[in-house]
């Protein structure tokens, strides 16, 4: 019945709706981290081929987003944050989202292989499959560790960029991957502390839904403690320079302070499924979760922007371990 009503009121799909399927905001972050990896590789790359590599990574990320929206339409429909997406909103048919995702996946991987190298193409294919199949179809609905393991898909773009430029993936490339991988849990769990009712309603086993807010706050603190040394490591491995060390240190201290304040707070305790006031309404104690969520985005952006700036400006890395 609901489906019939939805079909009757369906609005025509505009090209902009198909662009939204590609998750442009996520795509922009992927482009930024992939570009950092490509530049940090330190290999001379033809600028046109480098642009093609970044385009392929962006399109591959967009394809993953379209496949995710196709498969997750049922749970997206139940959450305030996602119910306006093109498929649950009835603007785009699920089959069209699937077709777009498959075609763009093939396009991006094949062009990456032909234009750059097949190591980068293979990593891109793995990332798309990992996000669309392993995370979306399996982990997301099955375990509270969904975003921990699934975070690998979001962490791989700098490695793909590095591989595209150099044809190799040395330790420093994987260090960039490790930074994003360890950053993902505190980032998403901070968000989920004040949107957990949405996830509970949709049956998605996010950490606050399964283990409760107190356990989530503790795990955020633990992951933050593990994250900061990894963020400092590039200064020791010949990847980051003095500016990077300063940004990673000061930002890391602020990150830990916010994680500690969140741990001591009652964020997420007052979740009330009956409250439907707004998407990111901040309840008692939840401002600490919001602060960490916002700062985590700033911190990751600053780290990668600093690395990018140092390499473009020719700043000599510190190599503290040598």
């Amino acid at each position, binding site marked *: 019945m609901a489906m019939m009503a939805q079909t009757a009121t369906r609005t*025509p*799909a*505009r090209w902009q709706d198909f662009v939204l399927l590609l998750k442009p905001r996520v795509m922009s972050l992927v482009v930024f981290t992939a570009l950092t990896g490509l530049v940090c590789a330190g290999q001379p790359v033809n600028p046109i*081929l480098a642009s093609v590599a970044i*385009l392929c990574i962006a399109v591959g990320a967009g394809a993953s987003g379209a496949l995710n929206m196709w498969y997750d339409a049922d749970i997206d429909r139940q959450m305030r944050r996602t119910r306006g997406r093109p498929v649950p909103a009835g603007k785009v048919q699920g089959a069209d989202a699937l077709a777009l995702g498959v075609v763009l996946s093939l396009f991006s991987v094949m*062009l990456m292989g032909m234009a750059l190298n097949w190591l980068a193409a293979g990593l891109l294919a793995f990332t798309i499959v990992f996000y669309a199949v392993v995370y979306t179809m399996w982990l997301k609905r099955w375990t509270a560790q969904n975003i921990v393991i699934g975070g690998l898909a979001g962490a791989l773009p700098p490695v793909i960029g590095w591989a595209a430029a150099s044809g190799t993936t040395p330790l420093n490339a994987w260090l960039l991957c490790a930074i994003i991988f360890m950053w993902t849990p505190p980032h998403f769990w901070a968000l989920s502390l004040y949107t957990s009712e949405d996830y509970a309603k949709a049956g998605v086993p996010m950490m606050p839904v399964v283990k409760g807010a107190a356990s989530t706050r503790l795990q955020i603190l633990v992951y933050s403690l593990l994250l900061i040394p990894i963020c400092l490591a590039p200064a020791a491995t010949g990847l980051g320079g003095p500016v990077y060390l300063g940004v990673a240190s000061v930002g890391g201290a602020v990150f830990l302070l916010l994680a500690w304040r969140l741990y001591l707070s009652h964020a997420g305790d007052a979740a009330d499924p009956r409250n439907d006031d707004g998407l990111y309404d901040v309840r008692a104690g939840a401002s600490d979760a919001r602060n960490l969520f916002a700062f985590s985005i700033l911190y990751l952006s600053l780290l990668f922007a600093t690395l990018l700036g140092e390499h473009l400006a020719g700043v000599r890395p510190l190599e503290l371990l040598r």
Partner: protein
Amino acid sequence: MSDPSHEGDDFAKARRGRNIALALGLIVFVILVFVVTIEKLGASVANRPF
């Protein structure tokens, strides 16, 4: 498939927009493949044996 004769202006306008976007996408793809081919083959294109 829907019958275009029963569609309103909104549907026709949206379809036209999608068609233009698809055409532009295909043109960009063709240009990309051409440029990548030239960049990868480089001087070999001009100096190939006949």
